């Protein structure tokens, strides 16, 4: 049986289709129904993970460090159901949009920082229950290992590995294998490929060892 959705995330009907939804200010033109807004799982890998019933360990209200927040599509939903949410993004351009997303969400903290250098934000980010990682850079396993220090003992890493960010020419399956073998300090609990919603992406749930 699929695990329960986190509190604050529900399946609701929009235009006749049942979709994931959270409560908050709309961000990217998604359909709304009262306070609820649809969570587009085609645009959000974490949304796809929840939709697929992966054991994310998310229950709602937890503290989250989100690496690779980009323009804030996914992190906006996370901040809707989670507690304090720290959003790290290194590219300046999407941070402008991210600031708009954070404005009505008082629990969302925007940090224009490099996820490969956790020491540049460890003076701001508190220990968290969940690290979500969705970074488009090489060395994704190193990023996850470097950010392990933020996780509480029973915390979860929810990582999405982009095969093309590591090596456009390599076979995605090999990239995914390499990621798991290079991932230090974690025990991998579950993996799932997100095709066809997100081609050449592997979702990984892990906990600190």
């Amino acid at each position: 049986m699929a695990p329960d959705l986190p509190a604050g995330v529900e399946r609701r009907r929009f235009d006749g289709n049942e979709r994931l939804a959270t409560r908050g200010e709309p961000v990217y033109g998604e359909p709304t129904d009262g306070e609820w807004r649809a969570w587009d799982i085609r645009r959000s890998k974490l949304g796809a993970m929840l939709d697929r019933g992966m054991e994310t360990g998310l229950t709602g209200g937890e503290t989250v460090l989100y690496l690779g927040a980009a323009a804030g599509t996914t992190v906006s939903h996370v901040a809707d159901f989670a507690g304090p949410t720290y959003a790290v993004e290194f590219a300046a351009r999407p941070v402008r949009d991210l600031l708009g997303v954070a404005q009505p969400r008082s629990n969302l903290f925007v940090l224009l920082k490099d996820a490969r250098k956790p020491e540049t934000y460890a003076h701001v980010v508190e220990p968290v229950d969940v690290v979500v990682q969705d970074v488009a850079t090489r060395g994704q396993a190193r990023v996850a290992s470097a950010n392990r220090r933020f996780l509480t003992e029973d915390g979860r890493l929810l990582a999405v590995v982009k095969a093309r960010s590591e090596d456009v020419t390599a076979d995605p399956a090999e990239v995914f294998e390499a990621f798991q073998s290079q991932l230090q300090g974690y025990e991998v609990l579950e993996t799932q490929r997100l095709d066809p919603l997100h081609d050449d992406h592997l979702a990984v749930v892990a906990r600190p060892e």
Partner: protein
Amino acid sequence: MNEETESGSGWFRGIDPGDRSEARRAIEDGTADAPAAWPANAIESGFVENEREYYDTLHEVTATVARAQVREREGTDAQRVIHCVRAMDDVERVANELAERVSAWAGTSFDDPGTGVEYAREIAAETPGRDDDLRGAMDSRLGSLAARVRALDEEGQALRETIERATPELAPNVSMLAGPVLAARLIALAGGLEALAKQPSGTVQVLGAEDALFAHLSGRGSSPKHGVIYVHEYVSGTAPEHRGAAARVLAGKLAIAARIDHYSGDRRPELQDELDERIARIRGRGD
């Protein structure tokens, strides 16, 4: 106010709670090896009264810092685009000068020399490099010079392609209305995106026509109707008697687009529709 407490190296350590600029600097430049229970530490150390106040302060300060950093980064990106567009102009100018030389020189060997960069490319492809006699050595230098023109021309195109990719990232709305290269020229003439965003539309209209404008201001000549925006099809492709109106409308929309690009950064496709409509109306006027 903070003694050596568990506040360790949290961003708020040693900071006056009322001093936002200190707080911003701490968020931006501070470091720590590991996280800690910062909210609790901030309360213990007296930085804030309670958790609510801590998160509210953090929300405000992180947003302010990120906004300032984005601005700063934008300044650097704009400087790069400006160098790119100036380099493209330099390269094209030098390529044309050298192509003239190639053409004049080729006239001594060929009956019907062509002109321009295209002709230099032909010479580069055709002229054999034989250095064994003086004549051969001369032809070989001519061929080599023509090859430099070709290389410069290719560099100019590569610069153009780079501008076409970089400018929409920096200024999506100005690029949408003006095209990326003209957008880059406007940013270069103003001295940056922020500077462009601060120009009134009348100034945007005559950017690049400074000589004519100052001649007009000192009593010589009429006021210029347009500067570099002349190259936009909506100006150059409009009948001369309506060109001033078209330039004014285009400049007005560009000034708005520059402000959106600088201050908010979101894309506003409706600006294009509004511009199209206004220009269609101007062109539809009888004379």
